[in-house]
Every structure is written in C-alpha cells, then in structure tokens.
C-alpha cells in the first residue's frame, strides 16, 4: 500500500489510544496484551486500555495501514502460544514521527510562551 503525505496529515491529530499504541509498537513487535502493558508503562499507568478498546484501536490502526499482523513468535517472547502479533508499518512509523514532530512543535511554542510569562 502506498501512502502520500496527505494521507499522513489526514490522520492527525491522532486519538490518544492510537498515539500510545504507535509509541508502544515502535519498540518492537508485540501481541495485543503486550501493547496494553507497554502503553501503561509508557504513560505511567495514566492510559489504560481494557480488551474492547484495545482491539478496537488495533483493528482501526490496521485498517488505516498503521500496523500489520504477523503470525511468527518473536524470540523475546517466552510464551509460545499461537497468537497474532502486531508490527508497525513504515507508514505507521511515518505517521508517528509526524505526530511527534507536530506535538513537539506545539509544546516548544507553549514552553517558550510560559518561559516568557515566567520571566516577565
């Protein structure tokens, strides 16, 4: 699937759950529950996803071409039960990068303003 820059912008801003799932999968392949655990760790427990929300998010991310399903078990996984794993697509990584840039830019602006206000 080819995606152009417009496609990327069309998805921004990302819903919170999608954003966190992208960040989680950037660390490597994970199964559904693994994504949930990483999201909780990354957000210090602030973002929690129960099973329904989790798979709804992953399902939509797959439709949008952000992630793809793989069937092999990654070597890091000690539990070898047959299940589906999720991997970031190149498009997904681009969307994540763009979103991070966007938020980063916004945050930089806010920081600068706060600093000025604090300095005044």
């Amino acid at each position: 699937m080819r995606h152009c820059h417009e496609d990327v912008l069309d998805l921004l801003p990302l819903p919170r759950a999608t954003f966190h799932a992208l960040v989680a999968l950037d660390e490597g392949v994970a199964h559904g529950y693994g994504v949930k655990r990483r999201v909780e760790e990354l957000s210090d427990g602030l973002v929690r996803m129960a099973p329904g929300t989790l798979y709804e998010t992953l399902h939509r991310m797959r439709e949008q071409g952000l992630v793809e399903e793989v069937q092999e078990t990654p070597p890091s996984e000690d539990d070898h039960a047959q299940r589906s794993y999720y991997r970031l697509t190149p498009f997904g990584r681009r969307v994540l990068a763009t979103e991070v840039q966007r938020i980063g830019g916004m945050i930089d602006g806010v920081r600068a303003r706060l600093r000025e206000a604090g300095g005044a």
Partner: protein
Amino acid sequence: MSGFDDGAEGLYRRLCTLLPPDFRDEYADRLVATLRRQRREARYRGVGGGLRFWVEVYADLAKTAMRLRARSSGRSTSLPATGDGRIGSDGHGRERGRRRGGGEMMIHDVRMALRSLARSPGFTVVVVLTLALGIGANTAIFSVVNGVLLRPLPYGEHDRVVTVWSRWTDFPKTWVSTGEFVYYSREAETLSDLALWSDLAVSFTDPEAPERVAASQATPNLLDVLGVDPALGRMYTREEARDDAPVVLLGHDVWLRRFGGDRSVVGRTVEIDRESREVLGVLPPGFRMPTDFGSSRTVQVLAPGYVDRESPNPMPQGGGSHSYYVAGRLADGATVADVQAELDRLVEQLQRAESVYPESWSFRALAFSVEDDIMGTTRTALWVLLGAVGLVLLIAAGNVANLYLARSHARGREMAVRAALGAGRGRILRGVLTESLLLSLAGGALGVLGAWWGTRWLLALSPDELPRIEAVGVDATVLAYALALSVLTALLFGVVPALRSASGDVKEAMGEGSRGGTPSRRSNRFQGLLVASQTGMAVILLVGAGLMIRTFGGLTRIDPGFDPENVLTVSISLPSNAYPDVASATAYWDELLAGVRALPGVEAAGAARVLPLASEIGDSGAWVEGYEPAPREHVRGDWQIVSEGYLEALDIAPVRGRTFEPSDGADADVFVINETMARQYWGERDPVGTRMAAVGDTGIVIGVVGDVIHNGMTDEIKAKHYRLRRQVPDAWGWATRTASLVVETTGDPEALLPAVRALVREADATVPLGRVRTMEDITSAALAESRFTATLLSVFSAVALILAVVGIYGVLSYAVGQRTREIGIRLALGAESGSVIGMVVRRGMVMAGAGVGAGVVVALSLSGLLSGLLHEVEPQDPLTLTAVPLLFLAVALMASGLPALRAARVDAAEALRAE
C-alpha cells in the same frame, strides 16, 4: 480462576454478541485471552479488585460495541476511539455542525446521560444498587423456575405422557397392581399404550469396584410410551422380556463412570448381582423415570419385566399386590381429563361386575399429566416465590421512581431552560429515558452477577427433592429475562418523570424555581400513591412470609416419635443369589451388627426394612385376635421388619410390654405394634399377650411402642407392626435382604463411618455400601421444601419492608426539606412544634395506613394460593393478619418520626432569611 470469574467470563463471551459480527468473529477470542491475562494483574487482587476488574471490562465492552456500531453505520469515521479527545485538539472540532446520524445521536444521548449521572454520584449509586437488588433477586429465582418448570421434560411429546395411580382410604396416591394394569391396558381407549415398572436397586458385583445403583424393571414398551430412544443400542424386545433374558440397558451416568463412555460396551456382558447380563444399549443423558424426579435417584440399570396382557386372570379380591408404577401415552385427541373419566368408568364397571374392592376403600384410579405429577406442590411454591420477588422489584422500582421525581423537581429549571432554548419535547424525553435505561442496565448487569452467586446459594438451600435441580443455572434464557426485566423496569420508573420533564411548562418551572421548587400538589399525590402501593405490596409479602414461617415453625415442632440425634444410617442390599433365604440374610446382619455394637462409642445398633421419613412404607393385611372387622373391612397395618436394637437406637420406647430381645427365638413368633394399631384394633383391651397374624405368620403381641411419623411430616399416622427379621418366613425373604443399618452413637455419628465401612467390607467384600445419612439429615430433608419457601419469602419480605420504609422516609424527608420555608412561617406565626410533628407524621401514617389496609385486603384474597403449602395454619390466620399490619405501622411511625423531628427543629428566622 475462581468459579465466579468463570461465570463472569462466560457472561462476557455472551455479551460479545453486542459487537458487530465481523469484528466479533475476528477478535472475540483475543478479547477473552487478553482479559484473562489482565485479570492476573496485581491491582485486581482480592474481592474488591475482582469486582473493579469486571466492572471495567464490561463497561469497556459496552462502550466499544456502541462506538463500533455507530461507526459501522457509516455516519462517522472520525469519532475518537477512547472518547478522551485527541492530543492537541479541541476534542470535538470536526463533529460540530454536522448533522447527527442515528448512531451518533444515540452516543450523544448516552454521553449526556452519563455526564448527568456522574454529576450526582450518590443518586446513581443508590438507584443502581436498588435496581441490582430487585433485578438480581428476580433473575436468581427465575433461573430456578426456568430450570425446574420451563425446560421440557426428557420425554418425546411429554405433554402426552400420563401417570396412573391408585387411591383408597389412607392412601391418597399409591401403586397399581398388575391385574389393574392388564385391565386398563385392554379396556382404556383414551390411552394408546401403557407401560409398567417397579423400582429396585442392584449391585455391580465385580470385586474391584462393587457399586450399588438404582434400577427399574420395566415392560419392554416403556421407552415407546415415554417417547425416548436409547442413546446407543436398542431396548429389549417383548420376547426377551417374556423369556426373562439376561439383558440390561445402562444409564448414561454409569456408562460414563464405569465404562468411560466406551461405545463398544453394547454386546458386552456385565456382572450384576453376581449374574452375567448382556448390555443391549445405553439410555440417553438426562433420562429419568417419571418417578425419579422427586428424589436423588436416577435409574442406572433398566432390566426386563413382563406382564402377560393377552390372557388375563380374574382379578383377586382387593386387586392384588399394589406395587407397580404405570405410565401411559394419550391416544390421539384424548386429554388427561378424558383418561380420568374413562378410568373412573372402568373401575365402576369392575366393581359392579366383580366387586373387587371393599366399599370402605372408595377405590379410584387416578391419572395425572406427567408434568403435574412430577412438579406437585413445587410448582405452586416456585410461582409464589417468583410472584413475591416480582413484588420486591415493583417496590424497588417505586423507590427509584420516587428518587427520580425528587430529582426531576430539582432539575425542573434545567429542563425548562433547555426547552426554552429550543430542545424539543422528544429530545428531552429521550434524554431522561436514556438515563433511566442506563441506570437500569447497570443495575441489571450487577444484578446478574449477584444472581450468579444467588443461584448457588439457592441451590445449597433448596430441597434435594426439588425435581430437576441439576438443570438450574444462569443461561441464555435467564440472561434474556434479566435484560427484558431491566428494560421493563426502566420504562416503569422512567416514564412518569420523563413525561413530567417533557411537559414541563417553562413559566411554571421557572416560577417554581424562584419559589424554591415546591413540588406541585399533583406530584405530591403521585408520590403518596406510590408509597402507599409499595407499602401494600410489602404487606402482601409479609403476610405470605408470616404464614410460611408459622407453617415451618409448626412443622419443626412436630414430634416424629423418634430421637434423630447422633444416629448414623447406612442402607445395604444383599444380592439374592448369594443370600437366597432369610437364614443367610439374618446371618449376614447378625455378624455385621455384632461388629458394629462392639465399636467404641456405639450405644445401640439395629436395622430396619424402611427408615421413617427416608423411604415410604406400605401396609399389608393382618388378623387380630378378638377383633371383628365390619363387612368388607380389611384389617391392615404398615409392615416393618427390624432386628433387635433398632427401636432402642431411635429411642422408640415401649408404652406397654417390651421390645424385641435376643431370646425371642424360633420357638414363638412375636410382634410389636404401635399405639395407633393398638387403639384401632384392640380398643380398650390390652394387646400384650394376645395373638395376631401378619407377614405370613401368627404370633404373640409382646409390646406396644409409641407412634412414629413415617411417610411424611404431615401424613396421618397409620397402624404399624414390627417383626423380627429372623422370624420372617422365606416367602417374604426378599424383604429381609434390603435394610438400613441404624447406629446410635455417643458422639459425632459420622466419625464412626470409616469403622462401619470396614466392617461392611469385612462381612462381604462384594456388597457395596448404599446411601449414608445421619437421621438428622433425613428429618431435615423432610422439612427442606417448607424451609426453602419460608426462608426465601422471609428474605424477600424483609427486603420489601426495608425498601417500603426507606420509601416512606425518603418522601417525608424530601417533603420536609422542600417545605422548610412553609414550616418556618408556621412556626413564626406561633405554631407549636408538636403540631408540626403531627403534620409530618400524619402524612406518613396516612400513606402507610392506606397501603397497609389495601395490602391486607389483597393478601386475604391471595393467601388462598398458599393453602397447598400451609400446614395447620389457615390462609386467613388471624395472628399473622394482625401482627403484620401492627409491625408495619410501628416501623412506619419510626420512619415518619425522624423527618418530623427535623421539621420541628426548623429555625423560623433562618428559614425565612434563606429566601
């Protein structure tokens, strides 16, 4: 995972049907797998954690389902997945201004409702808990009704199966004789076929695993009459039955247990009562004989029995031995009433032609539909309980409606403002209804979880004899019922406040607000009516519970005539080929009893053919010296066979003469009789030393013992005679092989069981131990149905009482709160605080009094429904009908007193300044 988690997970799986089908097909398994891993997380430990976990995942599932469905309706692809908005966006920028589709509108309504409920958490929690209580209790009872009454019986076209019984004086419902069976079979046109069977118990006698199981000996057409096919193999043929071929069908349980469900068992031989028999087939799972439902018995061996219907013998006087069960299948177009009418006619013809039965018997043949026969009073009890628990839900809904009304007064202004700003009536109505639906569904979900627990509790409490108890559980039907109930309840308590909100006149509402929101007289009256009806319903429940408690109390006070304390009983049956005569059976029992009596802690030990309250006893003909029976009168008595020590073990004391002793040997036959028999046939004479005959012999009466209740707690006590086993003639030898060992101990009777078990094995390793119970278990089981109904009705009526009182209290405190200003003015104008208290209490007592009065009237007309369940208590029991209203009015007085005192303490100046 605990059982609770298993149940909650099963429910989760079922609820996955809420998801759109394609999503569900792809993800349902993953959802459950993830859910299991999440369940193991440390923060969900403990009971609280577990509850939080399930609330979270159910809520998540519901939200996901709604979002996905809204999305798949194609209106919006941009709804945020978590509803939490997006990072760096304003949260709803893209939605604004777009015309809302159905799904999105629903989501909007739901979100508005959730927000509004979140603003008043106290209200939400109280309402959800109240509804959970009502819906949960209903779901639990319904699951029992569903399992026991609503599921079809395991017979083909079960509504065409009838059972046939005999009835005569002293025996309201008893067995049929073979002569009668042949007569009905040949003559009855309303029945297409009749089958006959008798119950017995047989033993698998291979020494590795001797086991005693329930068996039936039945005519070869039994399965056809019941409309059942074997799960494997075939039924025996008429020829096999006639030739007494050594063949059997196995029950499904025993097939699984002993043969591991091996299909090649058909054609193999098994050893039953030390005889080889060929297995012809296996009965289907869940199959029971129509007479097995009221007991824990399930037939595991079906053996051929045969009655020659072609060459009938003339019927003997009295009809012959009444010891068989009979079932029939209705002929095309016939009803049970037709069968009954025809049987009445047939018996009358027989009487006219041959006068088989003594006139004094008033003999009748009875026909029941198999369903009526099996359910008996259970059906009444369960419907009464379902009705009772329905009333509890109505009362709960009444409280919620009251809370809602109060809240809608408080929100009157908000609604009016929204209406003024152009929100349509439909829109406001929908909002309020969405709210009540959400509350109700939440209450329903919590209630189902509670019901899952409650059902377990009910099963533990329910009588063993509750038919089909194994079919009880929370299944799809029960869930559908709970869902329907939740929606119905939401409408019930939501509609009136919704209509009121929607019809809210803007000016009136705004005006109300400026006057402090005093509720209108119309809604005052409505609230009063609501509380009065709740009170009435609670009174009905209390009256029902009162009657059942009085019945149960009466039953527990019945003296059974024996002392059940510290008595162990074990039933044992000897195979007839190893113990062919009375002497061999007696030798076995003597050896076993000698061993048992030598055990430490044993006070007395004996054995009896049938135990009181455990299995039915029947009567047999007798002769009493010096008694002249009236013409056609038959001298009869229940016949009990015992060994010495039995009467002592149960503390059945002689009131005259003595009981059996080891010296009562072979030289003279002896009898012990009960007081009823002495009174009935000896009158003023002293029976001791006179002669009587029964069970094949003539002998001397050596003693009279106290009456013992036998067939049922409330059955009339009949004449009974006791004989020593070793004196029974061989013609009655079959009756000496099966008996219950009865051991009275100084301590815990069950502690003795290992020693008794060892002795039984020592006496003969191929004889299995039958049912083991203490005598207290047996007497307690006899009260179980009545205890079940009484306990549940008490719980329900207690809940109803509390809810109704909370209703009264709630309405009055609310009214006092609303009228603070008015009360302040009254006090400022010089009203005594006493008159203010009187005013509030009067309002409470008027509501309660009206409710109590109406409740008593309705209870009087309904209590007749209970009459089949009552014992020595009239449905119009004056004690109950006085105590309940008094109790209720007293409690209502307390509930009104608190708000009244608060009203009297209103500070006039402050109340006026507050405006």
